[in-house]
C-alpha cells in the first residue's frame, strides 16, 4: 500500500465545498447563510448539519479514510459522494464529471461501471445465495446469466469463499457475509471503491483478519478507495491519508504519520495521544543521510516500512541498517538509537 499521491495526476474524486443539511427548509437556510454555516443556528431552525464545507481530493490508487465518531457526518459525506443522498450545496466530481448535475440514467450508468460499495451491516439480499448476491450487480447491468455466474465464481475465489456458493447469507458468519459484500462490490470491477465501516460489526479477531484480507486485496487490485471508520487504529493501519471529522467538519486531512506528529486541532490531538508512534511512523522519518564511510549491516529495510515491523531487526543488528527506496537504491541508514528513541523516548515528551 504505497502512497501514490502525486499532484500531477488527475484526482478521481474531488469535493469542493460540499454541504449536506437535513431539514425541510435546508435549501433556504443555505442560501441565506452565504457560505458560513453555523451548526447551532441551523439547529434552531430545525435543520441538522451533516456535512459542513468538505473539500478534498482523492487520487488514483489512493486509500483515503474518513474517520470520526458517530454523528460526525462521515457516513453522510460518503453517501453524498456516492450520491445515495444529494448534497445540499457544493460540487462533487468523479473523474472530472459533476455528479450532482447527473440525471438518474447517467447516475445508474456511473454506478454500474465505476462504483462499488461495502456496507456496515453487509446488506446482502436475504433471498439470494452467495453466488446470486455476488452476481447481482452484473445481472442488473444486463450481463448474461452464464457470464455473470462465471464472473461471480471468480470473485468467490478471490475472497476465499469457495465451496459456499449456494449458501444463504443467514447461513454464514459475519466475517463470511462481509466477504460476500466485498465480492459483490468488486464484481463489476469498479474503479472507485466505497467502504462504509465494513469491519465495525465484526468481532475483534475477525476484524483483524478481514483488515489483512483487505490489504491483500488492495495490494492486488489498487482501487481508489474511500473508507469510513470510527476506529482510529484501523484508520492508522490501513490509510494512505486520513480525514478526521467532527460535527460535519473535516478537522484535519493528512497522512497517518503527520496526524500523529502534528495534530492540527485539540480534538485530533486527543485521538493521537495514546497512539504508539512506532505503529505509524515510517523508517524514512528517522533515517539519517547516507554516510559512505560508515559500515552498514547486511540487512536492508524499505523506507516505507512502519518502524514497528522492522524494529526488532534493527535493534538486533550491531551496525546501522541501510534504507532503500522502491527501486532498491540505498537512500539512507537507520541507527538503533533512533528506533529506541521512537519506541521509548517519546513518552515523556508527550506526558509533559
Amino acid at each position, binding site marked *: 500500500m504505497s502512497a501514490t499521491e502525486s499532484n500531477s495526476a488527475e484526482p478521481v474524486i474531488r469535493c469542493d465545498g460540499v454541504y449536506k443539511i437535513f431539514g425541510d427548509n435546508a435549501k433556504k437556510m443555505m442560501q441565506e447563510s452565504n457560505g458560513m454555516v453555523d451548526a447551532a443556528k441551523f439547529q434552531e431552525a430545525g435543520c441538522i448539519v451533516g456535512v459542513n464545507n468538505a473539500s478534498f481530493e482523492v487520487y488514483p490508487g489512493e486509500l483515503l479514510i474518513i474517520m470520526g465518531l458517530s454523528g460526525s457526518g462521515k457516513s453522510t459525506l460518503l453517501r453524498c459522494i456516492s450520491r445515495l443522498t444529494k448534497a445540499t450545496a457544493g460540487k462533487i466530481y468523479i473523474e472530472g464529471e459533476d455528479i450532482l448535475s447527473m440525471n438518474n440514467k447517467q447516475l445508474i450508468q456511473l454506478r454500474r461501471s465505476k462504483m462499488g460499495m461495502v456496507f456496515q451491516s453487509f446488506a446482502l439480499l*436475504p433471498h439470494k445465495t452467495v453466488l446470486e448476491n455476488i452476481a447481482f450487480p452484473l445481472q*442488473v447491468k444486463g450481463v448474461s446469466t452464464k457470464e455473470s455466474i462465471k464472473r461471480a465464481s471468480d470473485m468467490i475465489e478471490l475472497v476465499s469463499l469457495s465451496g459456499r456458493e449456494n449458501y444463504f447469507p443467514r447461513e454464514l458468519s459475519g466475517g463470511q457475509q462481509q466477504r460476500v459484500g466485498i465480492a459483490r462490490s468488486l464484481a463489476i470491477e469498479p474503479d472507485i471503491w*466505497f467502504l462504509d465501516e465494513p469491519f465495525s460489526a465484526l468481532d475483534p479477531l475477525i476484524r483483524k483478519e478481514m483488515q489483512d484480507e483487505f490489504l491483500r486485496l488492495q495490494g492486488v487490485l489498487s482501487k481508489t478507495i474511500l473508507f469510513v471508520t470510527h476506529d482510529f487504529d484501523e484508520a492508522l493501519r490501513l490509510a494512505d491519508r486520513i480525514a478526521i471529522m467532527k460535527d460535519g467538519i473535516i478537522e484535519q486531512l493528512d497522512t497517518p504519520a503527520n496526524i500523529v506528529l502534528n495534530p492540527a486541532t485539540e480534538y485530533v490531538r486527543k485521538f493521537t495521544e495514546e497512539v504508539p508512534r512506532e505503529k505509524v511512523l515510517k523508517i524514512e522519518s528517522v533515517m539519517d543521510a547516507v554516510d559512505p564511510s560508515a559500515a552498514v549491516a547486511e540487512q536492508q529495510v524499505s523506507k516505507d516500512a512502519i518502524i514497528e515491523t522492522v524494529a526488532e531487526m534493527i535493534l538486533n543488528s550491531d551496525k546501522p541498517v541501510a534504507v532503500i527506496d522502491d527501486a532498491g537504491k540505498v537512500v539512507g541508514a537507520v541507527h538503533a538509537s533512533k528506533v529506541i528513541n521512537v519506541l521509548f523516548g517519546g513518552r515523556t515528551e508527550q506526558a509533559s
Partner: protein
Amino acid sequence: MIELLRERKYLQFLLLIVVFLLMCMFIPATDGSWLWRLPPLFKQLPIAINNGVDYLMFDWWLVDVYDPDIEEYEKKPVMRQITRSISGFVLFLIELVREIMLGGVKTIVTFTGWDWATENQWARLPGLPWTVVAGGAMILGYRLSGIGLALFTGFAFGYIAVFGQWEPSMQTLSFVLIAAPIAILLGLMLGVWAFRSKTVETVMNPLLNIAQIVPHFSYLIPVMVFFGIGDHAGAIATIIFATPPMVRLTILGLKKVSPEVTEAGKMSGCTEWQLLRTVLIPTARRDILLGVNQVIMQCLAMVVIASLIGAKGLGNDLLIALNRLRIGLALEIGVCIVLIAIVLDRLSLAWANKQTDYFADQSFKERYKYSIWFSIVVAVGIAVAWVGSLFFKEGFNYLNIIPHNKGITTEPFWQAGVDWLWDTFFYTLKGFNEWFIVDVLIPVKNAYLGMPVIATFTLAMGIGYIVGGIRSALIVGMYLLFIALTEWWDRALITAYLMSMAVLISGFIGIVLGTLCAQHPTSTRILLTWCDTFQTFPSFIYLIPVMMLFGVTDTSVLIAIVVYATIPAARYTVVGLRSVPESLHDAGSMAGVNRVQRFLSIELPLSFPHIALGINQTVVFALSMVIIGALIGTDDLGQLILGSLSDRQGVGNGLVLGFCVAFIGLAIDQILRTWANQRKAALGLE
C-alpha cells in the same frame, strides 16, 4: 378529593360507573325523549345513497355506444359501461379456468357467439379428467417443494373426488384462482404506491382500517348493484375484501427493509423498477407472503358469502346444506374448503421460496422433467377416462368427472352421530340451552336494550377520556353518534351485546389458556400450531358443529363466536408472555421471586399491552362472526344487512348498517389501541 381523583385512574373509573348506573336508573324509557333515544336524523341517508348510486349507474355522463344487436348508436351511462366491461372480463377468466377443469362452451361462445356454437356442437372445451387435474397438481407440488407436498396435494384432490365434491370444488377453485392473483397484484401495487408516497399512505390508512372491519355482507350489496349477480360479482366482492390485508402487509414489509439493503441495490446500479422487483419486494417477502396467505384465506372465507350473490361452487352447497340442517354434508363440504385453502397456501409459499440451481448441468430429459411427466399424466388420464367410458357404459364415467354428490358420503354416519347426541343428551343440551338463554342471554340483552342513549355515551366517552384524553373521547363519541342517529340503535345494541358477551368469554379463556401454555416451550408451540390451524378455517365453518348441538339459537352463534374469537386472545397472550426478555426473568429470579410473583410482577405487566392488542383482535373477530351468525338467525345488525341483500333498494341500508358495525369496532379499537400504545411507551417497549 379533586386532587386525588385527578391522580387515581381507578377512582375516575369508579365515579364513571356510578354516574352511568344512576343514569340507567333514573332516566325513564319514554319514546321521544332525547335522553332515552336520539331521533333518527340519518333516516334519509340510505335513501340518499341509493339515489346517488342510481344516478351514477343510470344518468351520469352518457356516452354513445354502438349496439351490435340493433346496429345503432345508443346513449349509455359511462359507469355502467365500465362496470360491464370489468364484469365481462372477470367472468371470462373464471369461465376459462372453469371450462379447462370441467368442460363447457362459454369460452368459445365469447369468441364466436351462441348461434355459431349451437350449430357446431363439437366446438366445446372437453374438460380435463379429474385424474389429470389431481396428477398435475401433485407434480406441481413435487416440483415446488417435494414429495411431502405432492402427497398432501394428492390426498386433498383424492378426498374431493372420492366424496363427490369435484364439480363444486373446481367451480370454487376457478373462482379463487382468478380472484386471489388479482387481489394479490392489486394489493402489491397499492402497497408499493403507498410506500413510495407519504400522501397516498395518509389517505389509504383510514380507508384500510374501515375496509377491514366493515362486515363482508355490506360489500355484497354495492357490488351487486354495480356488477350484477354471478361468479364475477362474487369474485369482485372477494377481491375488494381480500386486498386490504395485502396492502397492509406490503407496506409493513417494505418499511422493514433495512436502508442499507436499499442502498446496496442502488449502488449495484438498479433502476427504480429493478430495485423494486429484485431488491425491495424479495427482501420484504416474509411479510408479503403473509399477505398472500391472508388473501387466500380471505378468498376461501368469502366462498360462502360470495355465493349469496351468485358465486357457484362449494359455498353455495354449504349454505344450502346448513339451511337444511344436513350437518354431515356440510362437514364434508367444509373439509373440502379447508383442504383447498391449505393446498393453495402451501403451494404459493413453496413457489415464493423456490431456488434456481445454476451449476446443475442438465440433460434435455432432466430440464423438461416436469413437462414430460405432465404430458404423461395427461395422456394416461385421458386414456383411463376413455377406458372408463367403455367400462361405465351406463350412467356416469367415474374416471372422467365424478358427478356432484355421487361419491362416497359419510353423511349418514354424521347424521347418526348427531341423532345419537340429540337422543342421548337431549335433555342436558336442551336444559343448558334453555337455562343459558333464559337466565343469561335474555337478561343481558334486556340490560343492554335498557340503557338510555345518554348513559351509553357517558360511559363510552368517559372511558375514552380517562384513557386517551379529550381526543379519544371525541373520536369515540363521533362513532357512536353516527350509530345513534340511524334508526338502528337498538339493533346495534344487540350486536354489541352478542359481541361483548363473546369477547368476555373468549378473552377469559384465551388469556387463561395462553398463560398456562406460555409456561413451557412445548405447550407454547402446540398452542401456536393450533391457533394457526384454526385460523385457516373460514369463519362459518365453526357454525357447523355448534348447530349440531344447539340448533338455531343465540347459544349456537355465541359459542361459534367464542371458539373463533379465542384464537387471537390466546395467541397474543402466549406471544406477549414469551417475549418478555430472558434477562428480566433472570433479574427476577436473582431477586428471589417465586413463580407466581414472577408472573404477577414481571411477566403480566410487561406483556399486558400486547395482550390488550390481542383483545382488540378478539373484538374484530367477534364482530365479523356476529354478522356471519346472521346466516343461522340472529336479530341484530347482521340480520338486517342480510335482509337488505334481497332488497332492490338495499345499497343504502346495507352500507349504513355496515358502517354501524365498523364503527362499533373502531370505537373499541380506538380505546384499546391508545391504551396499549401508552403502556408500551411507558414501559419503553417500542
